[in-house]
């Protein structure tokens, strides 16, 4: 019993799974460790092993074919391949991205680019759909993605490596080493990836996806201060360099090639202390600090004329979470204080009267926005079959006011074969720094975009329900649905630009109302011990009530299927397909539907090593350059060949 408690406490400390089988324990849906199949709030998990089977090198690739979500590479910008995630029809700032429970900063237009987060030190990714602001506050309207690392599983030295070659001169090198002695441990992770860009049109230098290089260096360590107190520290540095190219024909002048490089650095420091009080009760203290810097440039090749945008973000946080286990009741209460700072400026070098002039324009004045939050939750196991989970969170956002977000969830297991879950809750999103203070002056082209400091938070209500039936040990059938209403949605009001002279000024407003409704049906079959098949259908209906139209870029139908087959000669075959229907873009445009097929074959070369080869997007589906709203993959077919190996610690051969 004590062992179980310790295991659970360790998971709580790490915000991650314990040393037990990965994927068995989830934490994101309730902030308390639960077996994933018995979780009170439905939580999907993509383990590192599954991500590697999917041929992923980044979190974006790991989730690209995950049922219930859409990852849209390049959907928000012609360069950079920004890959935000869409859950229940919501994306950009309406899906909260966490790393070990801490919000990830460094968004571009509200989108956290999941393609910048390598899976080098990731142990698993948890996906919770539906409003989760009662636990995590702002941005958790569509759902929460929690990217989780873990302490080393093995005693003594252990190591892990992965080397891979890819199409378009792609290369991946990942290495990790760890030392663990009882409750003291240290782990170092490093990774490098690079890949050439994708040419948009033959005969032109334009790239639809830029050349890219990413690196990761991470150090994690933990120790015990006393028998009942553990401390853990995590430091991580991510760098992404991109080299974009585009060309433009200027009337009367000819074609210019414009270089668009960018560098993004993100550093995260995270310190946690867990104090155990026995009987499953604990106090977790967490201190976080993050910095994100992005410099992106645009200049004609060979010319001193151009511009350079500098964007800085920072986050400081302090959080205390008390967990009190009282028999069938587990209370969670917490407080969080955080301060986010932002600034953005544009250095423009232009030719004025034949002379070079450099000007530095402030686009977002440096500002710090503080948030104070209190939250509480009761997880009450009413008998063996029913768990009830009420919770509430209140946040104060200074000038933007306060928000209270309640949630009520329940899980009923009338028998071992059936699980029924339902939840209803409120989500919200506080206005972003851009929305509050952006000053984007494009007067030369006839328009400006101005921030609005009087914006209020967006607020949503959502209900979710799902049923799981396991008629036998080999078959699992799932069905679920959701409905979400969002009010005061913030957007640039293109219907209310104010024209003065020849310049139109648009601004952000709380003016839209949106509904999304969806359903999911899925089945998993284990035909034999080494054969597993899975198929999931997702339906999504959306409505922008302000315009009376669907939300753009939300495919109504998605079917995902996968087969995993362990065949003789230590071979593993993996196939995955995804059909995405066409979707509304505007009254005159629809993005085309498409289907992708991924194949992978791996052969075990040691106890935990594998030689593998695969192809992503076998059918070579790709975006049509210049086609507005095209959600098809921008990169086309990718072939890869690699090897991975794990060296276990001395006590765990």
């Amino acid at each position, binding site marked *: 019993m004590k062992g179980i408690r310790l295991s659970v406490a360790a998971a709580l400390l790490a915000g991650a799974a314990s040393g037990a089988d990965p994927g068995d324990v989830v934490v994101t849906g309730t902030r308390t460790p639960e077996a994933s199949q018995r979780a009170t709030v439905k939580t999907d998990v993509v383990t590192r092993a599954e991500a590697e089977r999917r041929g992923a090198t980044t979190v974006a690739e790991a989730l690209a074919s995950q049922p219930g979500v859409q990852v849209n590479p390049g959907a928000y910008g012609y360069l950079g391949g920004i890959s935000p995630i869409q859950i229940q029809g919501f994306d950009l700032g309406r899906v909260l991205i966490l790393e070990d429970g801490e919000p990830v900063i460094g968004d571009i237009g509200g989108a956290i680019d999941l393609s910048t987060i390598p899976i080098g030190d990731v142990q698993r990714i948890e996906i919770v759909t539906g409003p989760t602001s009662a636990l995590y506050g702002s941005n958790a309207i569509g759902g929460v993605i929690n990217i989780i690392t873990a302490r080393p599983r093995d005693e003594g030295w252990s190591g892990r490596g992965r080397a891979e070659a890819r199409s378009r001169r792609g290369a991946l090198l990942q290495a990790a080493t760890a030392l663990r002695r009882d409750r003291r441990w240290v782990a170092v992770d490093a990774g490098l990836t690079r890949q050439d860009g994708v040419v948009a049109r033959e005969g032109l230098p334009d790239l639809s996806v830029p050349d890219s290089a990413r690196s990761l260096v991470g150090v994690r360590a933990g120790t015990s201060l006393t028998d009942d107190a553990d401390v853990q520290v995590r430091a991580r540095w991510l760098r992404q360099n991109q080299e974009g190219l585009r060309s*433009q024909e*200027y*009337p*009367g*002048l000819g074609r*210019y090639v414009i270089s668009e490089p960018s560098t993004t650095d993100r550093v995260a420091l995270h310190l946690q202390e867990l104090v155990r009080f026995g009987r499953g009760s604990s106090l977790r203290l967490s201190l976080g600090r993050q910095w994100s810097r992005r410099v992106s440039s645009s200049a*004609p090749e060979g*010319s*001193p*004329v*151009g511009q350079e945008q500098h964007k800085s973000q920072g986050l400081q946080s302090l959080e205390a979470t008390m967990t009190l286990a009282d028999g069938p009741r587990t209370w969670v209460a917490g407080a969080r204080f955080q301060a986010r700072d932002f600034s953005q400026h544009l250095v*423009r070098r*232009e*030719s*004025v*009267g*034949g002379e070079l*002039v450099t*000007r530095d*324009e402030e686009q977002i004045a440096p500002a710090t926005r503080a948030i104070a939050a209190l939250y509480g939750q009761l997880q009450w196991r009413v008998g063996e079959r029913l768990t009830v989970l009420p919770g509430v969170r209140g946040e104060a956002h200074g000038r933007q006011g306060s928000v209270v977000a309640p949630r009520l969830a329940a899980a009923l297991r009338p028998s071992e074969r059936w699980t029924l879950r339902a939840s209803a809750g409120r989500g919200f999103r506080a206005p972003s720094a851009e929305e509050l203070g952006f000053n984007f*002056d*494009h*007067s*030369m*082209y*006839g328009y400006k975009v101005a921030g609005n400091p009087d914006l209020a938070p967006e607020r949503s209500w959502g209900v979710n329900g799902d049923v799981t039936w396991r008629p036998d040990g080999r078959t699992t059938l799932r*069905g679920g649905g959701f409905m979400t209403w969002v009010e005061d949605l913030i957007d640039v009001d*293109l*219907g*209310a*630009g*104010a*024209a*003065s*002279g*020849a310049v*139109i000024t*648009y601004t952000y407003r709380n*003016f839209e109302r949106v509904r999304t409704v969806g*359903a999911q*049906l899925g089945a998993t079959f284990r035909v034999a011990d080494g054969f597993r098949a899975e198929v999931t*259908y997702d*339906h*999504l*209906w*959306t*409505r922008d*009530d*302000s*315009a*009376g*139209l*669907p939300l753009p870029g*939300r495919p*109504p*139908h998605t079917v995902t299927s996968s087969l995993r087959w362990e065949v003789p000669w230590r071979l593993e075959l993996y196939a995955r397909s995804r059909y995405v229907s066409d*979707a*509304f873009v505007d*009254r005159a445009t629809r993005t085309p539907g498409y289907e992708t097929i991924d194949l992978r074959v791996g052969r075990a070369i040691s106890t935990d090593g594998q030689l593998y080869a695969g192809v992503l997007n076998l059918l070579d589906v790709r975006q049509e350059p*210049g086609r507005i709203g095209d959600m098809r993959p921008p990169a086309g077919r990718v072939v890869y060949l690699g090897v991975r190996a794990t060296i276990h610690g001395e006590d765990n051969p």
Partner: protein
Amino acid sequence: MKRHHWSPMLASCVFLVACGDDPGAPPGGATAAGGDPFASAASVSVAVPETGRRYVRLSDASVVTPPDPSTSRDWDLALQGYEVFTNSGPSGAGEGAAFGPLTKQECAGDRAPVVPFLWADRTGGAFLDWYAYDGASHLVYSRQHVYGVRAGDRAWKVQVIGYYGDQHGAPTPALYGVRYAELGGGDGAARTVQVDGTAGGVSAAPGAASGCLDLATGAVAALTEGEAQASTGWHLCFRRDAIIVNGEAGGPGGVVAADLSPGDASTETLDRVKALTAEQQLARFDAVTREDVAAAAMRGDHVVSTFDREGWVDWTHGPPAPADAGWLVLDASGGNKSLVAFGAFEGSTASSPGTVALRIKPVRD
């Protein structure tokens, strides 16, 4: 037994597949199929003079007489002859604006139709629409129209043949290429000149010096907005994407101008404009004669609003009549929107519509 288990799922699939994401009804829920979208609108009759203005307040659909219309926010629309102004920009101190014309179907319901922007009144004239804008590339393309410009007894034809120039190996906007020739005087030769209309660059303060062209001498002077407003030493000023005529509200020079090759909206598409070149359009330039200029209705820059004279009045069927359309109007406070349509004209003349019935329907966002 197996069939029994799957039937509800299949039924759900069929139901869900049937639920597409097709666009629904227009906002407001009402359609204008055969109905009058202004049936519930308030109405006010305005006797419009040929000179002098009548002022209308939208909130109570009334004609008002503000003591000082230039500073008052107590009026929302002003009518004078065949001109309609909003309380904004050079017309008034308010925060009014408007957009139109809209079809009657777009005016259905009690919600404001989605429009790209609302125009405040502004000054402009013959060169208001000299270019086509490509929103995808943010590039400006000259329509290559030929304009007539007259100052006293001298007249010129002018064609904007380019907007971009190369400086430091980079394309620079607002470096105008201008082709012009005097008509009926001088040597009549076509000349081209580059005018720097960058006005200090993209991020310079408003009103910075910009290139102003004297067509009589071919000289280009860099003048601030204030200097240009006080000078008669130029005919056309180039300020970023605007071309200003030195007459009426544009300056003290008494210059007037007209577009001698107004575009046909149905054929002058962006793609067609993008395909035009200066060389190709030389013939269009050469074809313009002094007689064309003499026959054109010419003006200096003046106050213009969304209620274009050709837009809200139907001139095609005998006596002038109100166009079958609606306008979205923002009131002087900048906070309330109404849909406005015009009823029949009574007693119209060549310079006034006579008594106009305004129909006003408040709408919400």
